[in-house]
């Protein structure tokens, strides 16, 4: 049998159900590999001994009817986990232990999975390289000193390096799809309202969405099936009929109309990305789908719109971290002094930058020019997609304008960093589902991803397209375990 940690989620489930593997064996294997992989800095909090205990308990009386029977899983440290420290990658929550569980993680444990630990991420999910985390940079297993993307950088690194069979991230502007693309894995951002935001540390409420990150499309579909649920505790959760995403998964996409938006051919896009996109078009054609050129005319405005809306919401969402009730508190002469010191010392530079941008765009006198206008543009961006979907079933684009870059390469140039999200951000603004799949390598051997964007609630369709393409692409991640001595 294949090395346990090299198996996909689906294989592990099969082997546990066939009693070829116990949950304890599987959990121990991932714990051991995680222990040997500390250099990646993927974990913020390890919960390994508890995980092994839970696995043993599972094996005593295994319920094999569950969808994730005894499967160990580490999750992004933005999900509140009961009695397990939850930091959001920030000093300000360095000592925060929730007494409650997020709906998404609860759904996962309800299906038999076991928490391995909490994965590193950009502070409050604000970043595209995992470099804003208070707990340090995460290494991309593809190559040393390469960023794993962000904000779900610990998650992408952990799945690519096989420290966890599968994981969940959150995606506000690309935080699942971009790191998935940088590490050669699959990442799905579901439709806004598909997964409950209850218990997820908020960044930008109207954009945040949890989603699965996996080694392949089938695993991704399975985890999506588990985490997507209507939740009364989240007023923006949507009560729609959810598919049985795995059972309905098919590689038959004959006759599907795939749109190619011309506006995504951005200036200075590397030829490698251009070529990858062309290859992607050929793959879907091979699968019998029809290619249709489309226009999403307001694409250019997506990034500036995002960098108004997201910081505005963040500036308000992060007001609760004031040192009064929980988390880090700095001593101060008086209340205001305590606030100022707590927030200056507790938040990192990128978070402070975004709070300031957000505060500015909401200020009286600027609100109409920035926030209100951004909301109007957001509507136009959504209308673009609505128009396009009258003609096509899904849209194919690159996931990112480049492959992974080196740690430190872009830290002093926030705008260049923000440009990483250029292909992913419109999807969040329009509330649509998008999936990134590994589709090839650049000259350096770094993975590159393609994104398939779907209609709202049409995750099944983009999963199917991704599934069909995956078969054609037959991507193999080039990982040498360089960090294991």
């Amino acid at each position, binding site marked *: 049998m294949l090395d346990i940690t090299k198996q996909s989620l689906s294989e592990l489930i099969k082997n546990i159900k066939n009693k070829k593997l116990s949950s304890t064996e599987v959990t121990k294997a991932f714990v051991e590999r995680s222990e040997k992989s500390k250099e990646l800095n993927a974990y913020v909090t390890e919960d390994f001994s508890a995980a092994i205990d839970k696995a043993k308990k599972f094996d005593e009386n295994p319920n094999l009817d569950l969808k994730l029977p005894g499967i160990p899983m580490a999750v992004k440290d933005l999900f509140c986990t009961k009695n397990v420290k939850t930091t959001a990658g920030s000093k300000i929550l360095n000592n925060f232990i929730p007494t409650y569980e997020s709906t998404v993680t609860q759904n996962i444990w309800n299906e038999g999975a076991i928490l391995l630990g909490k994965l590193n991420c950009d502070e409050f999910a604000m970043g595209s390289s995992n470099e804003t985390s208070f707990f340090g940079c995460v290494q991309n297993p593809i190559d040393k000193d390469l960023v794993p993307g962000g904000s779900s950088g610990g998650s992408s690194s952990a799945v690519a390096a096989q420290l966890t069979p599968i994981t969940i991230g959150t995606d506000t502007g690309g935080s699942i799809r971009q790191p998935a693309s940088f590490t050669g894995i699959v990442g799905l951002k579901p439709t806004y309202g598909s997964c409950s935001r209850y218990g997820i540390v908020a960044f930008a409420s109207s954009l945040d969405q949890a989603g699965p990150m996996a080694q392949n499309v089938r695993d991704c579909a399975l985890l999506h099936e588990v985490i997507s649920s209507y939740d009364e505790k989240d007023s923006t959760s949507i009560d729609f009929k959810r598919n049985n995403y795995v059972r309905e998964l098919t590689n038959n996409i004959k006759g599907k109309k795939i749109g190619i938006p011309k506006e995504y051919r951005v200036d200075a896009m590397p030829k490698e990305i251009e070529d990858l996109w062309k290859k992607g078009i050929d793959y879907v054609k091979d699968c019998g789908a029809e290619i249709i050129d489309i226009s999403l005319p307001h694409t250019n405005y997506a990034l500036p719109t995002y960098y108004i809306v997201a910081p505005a919401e963040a500036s308000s969402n992060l*007001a609760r971290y004031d040192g009064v009730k929980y988390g880090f508190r700095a001593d101060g002469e008086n209340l205001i002094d305590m606030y100022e010191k707590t927030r200056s010392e507790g938040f990192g530079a990128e978070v402070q930058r975004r709070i300031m941008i957000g505060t500015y765009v909401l200020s009286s006198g600027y609100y109409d020019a920035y926030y209100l206008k951004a909301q109007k543009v957001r509507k136009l961006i959504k209308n673009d997609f609505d128009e396009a979907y009258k003609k096509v079933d899904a849209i194919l684009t690159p996931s990112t304008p480049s492959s992974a870059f080196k740690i430190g390469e872009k830290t002093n140039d926030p705008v260049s960093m923000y440009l990483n999200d250029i292909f992913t951000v419109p999807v969040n603004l329009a509330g649509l589902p998008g999936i990134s799949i590994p589709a090839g390598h650049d000259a350096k051997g770094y993975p590159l991803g393609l994104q398939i964007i779907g209609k709202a609630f049409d995750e099944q369709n983009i999963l199917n397209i991704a599934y069909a393409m995956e078969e054609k692409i037959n991507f193999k991640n080039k990982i040498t375990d360089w960090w294991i001595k």
Partner: protein
Amino acid sequence: MSKDKSDYLINRKDNQYEVVIGLEVHAQVTSESKLFSTSSTKFGAEPNTQVSLVDAALPGMLPVINEYCVKQAIKTGIGLKAKINKRSVFDRKNYFYADLPQGYQISQFKDPIVGEGKVILDMPHGQKEVGIERLHLEQDAGKSIHDLDPKNTFVDLNRSGVALMEIVSKPDLRSPGEVNAYVKKLRSIMRYLGTCDGNMQEGSLRADVNVSVRKKGSKEFGTRCEIKNVNSIKFMQMAIEYEANRQVDLIEDGQYIDQETRLFDTKKNETRSMRSKEDAHDYRYFPDPDLLPLEVSDDFIEKLKLEIPELPDEKKKRFIEKFKVSPYEATILVSDYETSNYFENVIKKSDVKLATNWIIGELFAALNEKSLEITESPISAGNLSKLINLIKDGTISGKIAKTVFEHMMEGDKDPKKIVEEKGLKQESDPKALEALIDKVIDDNREKATEYKSGKVKLFGFFVGQVMKVSGGKANPQLVNEILKKKL
């Protein structure tokens, strides 16, 4: 607006100033649970025992609107004859304070749930209409307690997230008297509706008072000051009186009034500057992305209309038309729901005129003396009704009735039993009365002779004597008749 003859004016030398007042009333919604969480709203619990994860703003916690509070706000809107907005939006009002866990208050800024309406005041000089600008729903903050420790402030989050209705009046009020009538009327309407208990001691009703002055006859408004968070009608009136005079003095002195927020110091009876317009917070309002716009259907509103009881204005009209009580009496009887209810229960089986007099007179005085509400009255409506019937059918005199009433106040006893036990029944037997009168005349032979010789004033003396001898029980009408014959 109807004619305003209130003439509350401030005089200085040759100038007369009119006072212009607008109120922002914060009324706590009567509801078991908070606006966006399921915690209890019960008053008086131990600090921080009614706080959910949402109320304490823990990471990842989300607000979920309490439908009951929405219904209550719409009902109140209907009671204020106001426009109900089928689509309203919750906004975040951002500011930092220790008792505001989220760092923002969820409120409604641009699109409130209720639009323009009106309230009718019954003033001594006639009716006055006060415009309502809007009503919106918002969360209350927690409470900071500064006096438990010399160095630290304590925070109690029990109130955090409790639903409030902010009811904003137009600047239509012109005197402390009108403010008194306005707040009482608003309170009365909400109590009829069951949407706010109006309990000012428990902080269920507070107001921010906007005051400006202008020379009489002027059409333009003066610069206003806002007096924050005044929690009794008496203090509102005192604050307005002080503030209006302060502003007039400034103008008379050739100075300008700064638009500012002020506090009313109840101990010193003065208002003090809290912050100027320049220091005003920038609340950075924006729609709360955790909540979808609130949309209600016509059907939802129509169903709520069916739940609206008869309100004070309509009830007053009915009392005047049906029971022929005076407008003055009707205003008092409908002023709160419980009183009107009590009244209607009493008159089910007894005379309206007597009932009105007994309730407004004796009962109110007695309750007032004991500081009791009508709901705490020791005398039930049924027993008051019986007492009135005993007067009406001549069993007891009005005077004896007062004695019986006093006994009833000590505990809700059947007045018939009191009359029997104490032997207070009126003597109406002519034979018994004749005997009594004969004895009185006999005992006062000289006076009887004087009367007969023309000193008619002495008739009253004889009536008094008969009543005295009978222990007040003699039927006064019969005594009169028999005495006239006998003398």
